[in-house]
């Protein structure tokens, strides 16, 4: 009578063991009752590994046994490739890992010291104000658009008032519209200056340039904005005499802050990467002007100082990439034909004009010939563009509509545009 009582259990146990032979067995560590509230997590017991001694774990017993150690299971890895769940190897396992770090300036970098830091990194001398012969380009009536002021004011009004179905367009939108309207206006001069036809606008190109400064390696990487490309290079802005005079200039240092502050420090990088964004044989290889917008990147809000620093760095990056492709990557003390790149930055109302002239690619030391930067900062195109008038104490302080238009700003814009074409 006893045997029929026992046999099912014996059968069950044997069958249980037999059936799970070669398959996973159930681990009863977690099939306990769980409290409804989450207890505060206790620090897990420290696992001490003594070499030579084998740990007796309760892994074989398939349930917790007080006194035995917790088993350590190998990390499970997917045996097929799933791009949705990919874990990158740590930096020191990557192929391009290098012990020496590289400091990268990308389009979201907000340099702490602003323009002085960018000037130190690019070994450049700052001259405030645009060069006078450049400004005189737009003074002559032959280089002016017919009804210039009226058309520019219409362009501003279109960007600020008319280009929306809501009450007012957002800053990102109106600065974008304003820039494209102004560029369109400048391009109408093509009938008079056919050289403008040898230029093209390009967007979303990725720039890369490498250089050594002191003992550190620096790189400029990223998509910076609208680029105005040209088939012919820009003429140089300053003569050989001025270029030679820059050798006496001393770069501004900012002790105790290091010049590589706020730059992204990477150990995985490609050395000597120099890419102007376009392949060999591109018909418009020379960078003419870069157009930056302050609200171009949603995730990055830059202060005006940091925005100007970004302009300097990317103008330099474009010039350096061109220099490396023309003269090779070896540092050249003086370039025979200095490379000039211009940059215009705007936030919809204020404009920053920049001209960068690359005189040397020998940037490791602090002495010697420096590059030159002409910077005209915070130039207003107009004072106010209000939808509703500002009324204080029943008096109209600022009327509605476009107010305080300054024609000199567009003349500067036009002269930078026409540089090289006239």
């Amino acid at each position, binding site marked *: 009578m006893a045997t029929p009582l026992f046999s099912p259990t014996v059968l069950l146990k044997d069958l249980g063991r037999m059936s799970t032979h*070669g398959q996973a067995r159930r681990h009863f560590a977690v099939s306990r009752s769980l409290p409804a509230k989450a207890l505060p997590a206790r620090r897990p017991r420290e696992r001490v590994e003594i070499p030579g001694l084998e740990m007796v774990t309760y892994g074989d017993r398939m349930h917790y046994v007080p006194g035995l150690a917790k088993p350590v*299971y190998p990390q499970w890895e997917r045996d097929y490739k799933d791009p949705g769940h990919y874990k990158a190897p740590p930096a020191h396992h990557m192929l391009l890992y290098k012990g020496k770090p590289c400091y990268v300036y990308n389009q979201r970098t907000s340099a702490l010291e602003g323009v002085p830091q960018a000037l130190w990194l690019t070994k450049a001398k700052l001259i405030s104000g645009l060069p006078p012969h450049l400004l005189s380009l737009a003074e002559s009536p032959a280089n002016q658009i017919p009804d210039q002021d009226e058309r520019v004011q219409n362009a501003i009004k279109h960007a600020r008032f008319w280009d929306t179905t809501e009450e007012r367009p957002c800053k990102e939108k109106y600065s974008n519209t304003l820039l494209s309207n102004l560029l369109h206006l400048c391009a109408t001069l093509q009938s008079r200056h056919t050289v403008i036809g040898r230029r093209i606008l390009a967007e979303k190109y990725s720039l890369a340039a490498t250089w050594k400064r002191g003992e550190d390696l620096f790189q400029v990487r990223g998509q910076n904005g609208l680029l105005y490309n040209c088939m012919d290079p820009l003429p140089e802005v300053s003569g050989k005499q001025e270029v030679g005079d820059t050798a006496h200039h001393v770069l501004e240092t900012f002790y105790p802050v290091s010049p590589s502050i706020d730059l992204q420090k990477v150990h995985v990088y490609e050395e000597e990467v120099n890419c102007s964004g376009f392949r060999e044989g591109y018909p418009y290889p020379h960078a003419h002007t870069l157009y930056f917008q302050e609200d171009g990147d949603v995730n990055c809000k830059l202060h005006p100082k940091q925005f100007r620093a970004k302009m300097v760095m990317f103008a330099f990056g474009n010039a350096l990439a061109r220099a490396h492709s023309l003269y090779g990557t070896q540092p050249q003390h003086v370039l025979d034909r200095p490379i000039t790149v211009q940059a215009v930055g705007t936030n919809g109302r204020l404009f920053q004009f920049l001209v960068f002239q690359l005189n040397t690619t020998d940037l490791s030391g602090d002495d010697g010939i420096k590059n030159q930067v002409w910077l005209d900062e915070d130039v207003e195109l107009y004072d106010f563009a209000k939808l509703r008038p500002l009324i204080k104490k029943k008096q109209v302080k600022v009327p509605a509509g476009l107010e305080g238009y300054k024609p000199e700003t567009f003349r500067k814009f036009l002269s930078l545009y026409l540089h090289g074409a006239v």
Partner: protein
Amino acid sequence: MMAVSCLTRALRSLTVSQPALLSSQAVTQTKLGTLVPSTGGQCRGFLTTASLDQNRTQWKKREKYTVNPIGMKKTGGRDHTGKIRTHGIGGGHKQKYRMIDFQRLHYEADKETKPFEEKVVDVRYDPCRSADIALVAGGNRKRWIIATENMQTGDVIKTSGVIGRMAVSANEGDAYPLGALPVGTLVNNLEIQPGKGSEYIRAAGTSGVLLRKVNGTAIVQLPSKQQVQVLETCMVTVGRVSNIDHNKQIIGKAGRNRWLGIRPSSGLWQRKGGWAGRKIKPLPPMKNYVNLPSISNKTT
């Protein structure tokens, strides 16, 4: 949906076999087992419930230092069970936490361990404490520290871990070990154990006084007039903490207290016990934080 199907697939492999399963089926299962990769005989258990972890404290578990403010979760005085553990906390303006580096003698990674200088970039209000905080930049890094009384943007502050024979004439805002400072200096951000980070004298307008230096230790008087004895290698900043008029602030109305996150106390009249009333007691004995080997250890 996918999780459920994965779970059912896993559970199916673990089902306790029915008594009807005989050796033939066991054989077929092993045959199938050769096709399907087996889990090696052991498999760790898995939960069949949803995760019971709470993420109410995950915002403060960040290990990497950052200068950017971190969003905070308010607790309202409640603990992990949901009941009030501390009364009078709740509501108030939303705050972001800025990670403060209390370890003033924090050398940069890959840099030499020698005295360094930092430049004050910004001094600003911190919603999480009574004192103001300063963003200082040195070398390649930026960090937040507690600002001292006359700290302005553009100042250069020095941090040194060296104890010389002569006492240093310290400027306000600089940080030195206690052994390097002259007796009688006003100090703040006191470390009790060297290298741990400052835990004392951090509130607005407070300052301690370095009373005397005794062989390898220094005695500091805290703002509560309590005296502590610490090792002379503990770092300390010179000067008073910023925002000195904090205690003169008049709240003015109940609403301002609510903006600060202080809820009204219970209005029930409760008989005050022995804890209430003015107490005039002698100062507690000096607290010693120096771990000297005790005599009892030597004898045993």
